């Protein structure tokens, strides 16, 4: 079975600070990896995803994530956060044993950016 661990449940940053949110997964095979974001009062939406090729993935709003296979990690980064990045962030994984496109989500990280 797959599992996803997000180490930080709550993160508070000031505007312009750099962000890194950790995500580790447990699965030994080929994976799809996703970061979803949920802004206050809004739908969960895709931030970025990795499915093959370049392990450094760029997403919307200046976010990027790096897939490090040897560390089973897919950390999310942004060099300079804005107040509008205040949201909850979820990492998710799909393993290649999963023909049904089921995702396993981490517990989420709540980010608060102080103006």
């Amino acid at each position: 079975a797959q599992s996803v661990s997000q180490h930080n449940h709550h993160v508070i940053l000031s505007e312009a600070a750099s962000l890194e949110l950790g995500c580790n997964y447990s699965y030994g095979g080929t994976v799809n990896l996703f970061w979803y974001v949920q802004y206050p009062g809004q739908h969960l939406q895709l931030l970025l995803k990795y499915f093959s090729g370049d392990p450094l993935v760029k997403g919307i709003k200046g976010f990027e994530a790096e897939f490090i296979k040897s560390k089973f990690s897919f950390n999310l980064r942004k060099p300079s956060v804005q107040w509008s990045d205040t949201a909850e962030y979820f990492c998710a994984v799909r393993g290649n044993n999963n023909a049904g496109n089921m995702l396993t989500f981490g517990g989420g990280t709540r980010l608060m950016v102080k103006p």
Partner: protein
Amino acid sequence: DVKVTQSSRYLVKRTGEKVFLECVQDMDHENMFWYRQDPGLGLRLIYFSYDVKMKEKGDIPEGYSVSREKKERFSLILESASTNQTSMYLCASSLGASGRWGETQYFGPGTRLLVL
């Protein structure tokens, strides 16, 4: 744009009641999913469906059932609601076609259910 809608944003029900949560997607997606979202636990998959009348159990199916009579509609049913089913319920859909690699799931706005 993909649109996934859920019938209610907020619901209050009593213990023992039968509860129906409805989800509709407008993009002819094959796959549909029901999750519950709880603080600190993230999203956990309850059931999913990859075709009309087809369903598969997710990680936490106990106490729930589902129905998919039409491709665009996926219902979650709580046969006898209990207080531990108080949660946020999210519906999602994805294109499908035998589990395309790298596929994105699109989420609805969620239904916040309170069981008293």
